[in-house]
């Protein structure tokens, strides 16, 4: 296990390095940085001064070396917009995104597993048909549309919930609910499929012959076996959320990393964009390692 984690850490570090190289050279490929950073009508002298100041006249490899050395010291440069270190700006926003993702995914996971397992227990029954119907709608509905409808309904017409921002617990309800719907529908389908297989397996027959009650048959004997494919999908969905739920965060004015990234791109605040990419990438690497550990914990046949 320790050896495996070491290997994964090395692999992740290599991937991060490649990511850094890509981000640096891609951003240089987009053209003269002075055109990106300075207003269109900036004078030639101003441009030259800017180049001098930021070392843009040095050879590309020298620039890259300097950039890497700075990164190694966790120095992503300053945010132009906020005039603060970019990393601080990103971490602040990432806290919000992380909280939103954790709460939403926890709710999604519990709900999808319980509903999906019960649906699988009586395939074709009323509960199964209702659950499948709504989960398919949930999995296919676009979240920007749901978000707008939810705002119109609960905030504008009924006036129950605030439309945007943060501050009270009420501000969280709409973003979480809207984010919940799609992964819930998707994961429920996977849980249902995996549980149908698990419940028709031979070891479930043994459990029934032993006299195990239906509930432990589902949630003890079958569920742990059915969880392996489910975990993969949970990880996939959580990764999407950690990248910042761009649409939902923007619509609800939620100060997460997704909204920050969009704003920074629009305002050409590249130091922040880069820092945001690195922070979310590291978060996703860490989550993938957690998923691998979860596999090994759930299934004793998997040993790294």
């Amino acid at each position, binding site marked *: 296990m320790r050896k495996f984690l070491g290997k994964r850490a090395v692999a992740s570090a290599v991937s991060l390095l490649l990511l850094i190289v890509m981000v640096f050279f891609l951003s240089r490929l987009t053209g003269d940085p002075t055109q990106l950073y300075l207003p269109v009508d900036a004078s030639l002298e101003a441009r030259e001064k800017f180049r001098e100041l930021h070392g843009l006249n040095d050879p590309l490899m020298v620039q890259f070396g300097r950039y890497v050395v700075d990164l190694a010291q966790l120095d992503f440069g300053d945010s132009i917009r906020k005039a603060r270190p970019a990393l601080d700006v990103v971490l602040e926003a990432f806290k919000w995104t992380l909280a939103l993702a954790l709460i939403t995914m926890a709710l999604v996971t519990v709900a999808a597993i319980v509903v999906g397992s019960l649906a699988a227990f009586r395939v074709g029954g009323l509960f199964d048909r209702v659950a499948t119907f709504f989960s398919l709608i949930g999995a296919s509905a676009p979240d920007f549309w749901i978000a707008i409808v939810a705002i119109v309904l609960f905030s504008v017409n009924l006036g129950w919930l605030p439309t945007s921002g943060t501050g009270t617990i009420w501000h969280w309800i709409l973003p979480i609910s809207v984010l919940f719907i799609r992964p819930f529908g998707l994961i429920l389908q996977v849980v249902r499929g995996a549980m149908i297989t698990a419940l028709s397996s031979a070891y479930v*027959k043994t459990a029934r012959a032993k006299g195990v009650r239906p509930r432990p048959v589902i949630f003890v004997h079958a569920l742990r076996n059915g969880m392996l494919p489910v975990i993969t999908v949970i990880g996939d969905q959580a990764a999407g959320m950690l990248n910042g739920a761009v649409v939902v965060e923007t619509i609800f004015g939620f100060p997460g990393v997704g909204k920050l990234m969009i704003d920074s791109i629009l305002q050409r605040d590249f130091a922040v964009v880069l820092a945001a990419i690195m922070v979310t990438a590291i978060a996703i690497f860490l989550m993938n390692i957690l998923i691998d550990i979860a596999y090994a914990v759930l299934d004793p*046949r998997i040993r790294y």
Partner: protein
Amino acid sequence: MADHLLEVRNLSVTFHTVRGPVHAVRNVSWHLDRGEVLAILGESGSGKSVSAAAIMDLIDCPPGEITSGACLFEGRDLLKMGVEERRAINGKRIAMIFQDPLSHLNPVYSVGWQIEETLVIHGTPKAKAQTETLALLAKVGIPDPAGSARKYPHQFSGGQRQRLMIAMALALRPDILIADEPTTALDVTVQAQILALLETLQHETGMGLLLITHDLGVVAEVADRVVVMNAGEIVEQGTAADVYANPQHPYTKRLIGAAPGKGAMAPDRTGKVVPLLEVTGLRKSYGAFAALQDASFTLEEGETVAIVGESGSGKSTLAKCLLRLEEPTGGKAIYKGRDLLALSPVELYAMRRDIQMVFQDPTQSLNPRMSVYDLISEAWVIHPDILPKVRWRARVAELLDQVGLTPEHMHRYPHQFSGGQRQRIAIARALALEPRIIVCDEAVSALDVSIQAQVIDLLDGLRKRLGLSYIFIAHDLPVVRDFADRVIVMQGGRIVEQGSVRQIFEAPREAYTRNLLAASLDPDPAVQAARRKARLTESLTA
């Protein structure tokens, strides 16, 4: 008051499928008493497991429906009891073990946990359940009970897994144990141990044992009485000895007649010896593990060489190395003056025509999306020089005819055939390349006894007509006895003995061969009774 411990009366079960209702069992009645072993004997699809499933409440309704009958346990009808009442009986009063213990044990829980669970759900306190679990593991012969309890099912051997299932089933000293094909997937020597264990435990507890099996040998070894089922109905019942010695129903007669190991053995081959294939020093290692060591033998033209051995003996590895499905680590296999193991990929491609393979499970080895015509003619797509395309249809029809199917079958798909028919298709596919040698890897093991006999007859006929040679890999000694000219016995990756079929079966030289033969079960209860007596005196004198 109840006459019997368990009595099934006029039970009929129907399964509603998309193709219409299937009457799995019709008007089945039998009974089981304390301390007795009742065997339900039948081939696949006979409905032999259905009444047990009804007793254990394992029939899903729908699609199943119990249309009539009663299952009386101590005089009370199980089918009329509430869910909770039946649950309390399952595992505690009536327990069940199954074929293939690996898939019937939950892979993600430790075996100790699984045995404990049986005790705990029926009211044993946790601490007591833990100590009892260790006692049970020791009783069924699992080494190091405390350490083993923490292990998972995949860490045990097949025989040990069945012992674990038995420990789990017997945890609460049930009145009845239902064993559904408990030894079918096991090696003969392990089968003998498991049957002996079941018998000992039965004597100790006085439980009734219901044994569901397709194997006349198992019936002969342990059953007091036997119920013979065919196509959902009981055709005959009586004591095991009576039914074998004096079968009444034509089906029973056929079944007993088809039992292998009774025919004449092939005479020793005499005259001119033409070696077709000469294997010397064949080796295969996986890392440090030597799966096959120094195997040498010859195969003559028109000869059947059987390779027998238990699982892990290296018999399949040998076949795979000969066909270069696995790359051997060393050795030679001279065929037509060339070393098969040293051929370049291009030469190998041409040589593949001459040596074909028929696998154990035709359901898996035939592509389900290809019609029979496609399956057989694919050989000529790969080797276009064998046959011009205009003649393909006629040749497929001819091959189907040769293996006992009809030309109309060529447009059907594998799932539309029975297991025996599918194996015939696999043989026809092998014949399409006009091979000299066919390697049969457990080719009849998955088939019912009567079907097995037919396929063996087919292979034998093809050998005589086409002059084929077979390498026949099998674990079933009676089949080998009837079919092989020579026998190679393997153990732990080595050939321990080889000789003519007569020499191996009548005068085995090695102790391992003798053990293997002794563990193999004879379908005749009288023969088995004599062997048991001999074993008993042997153990007493020892």
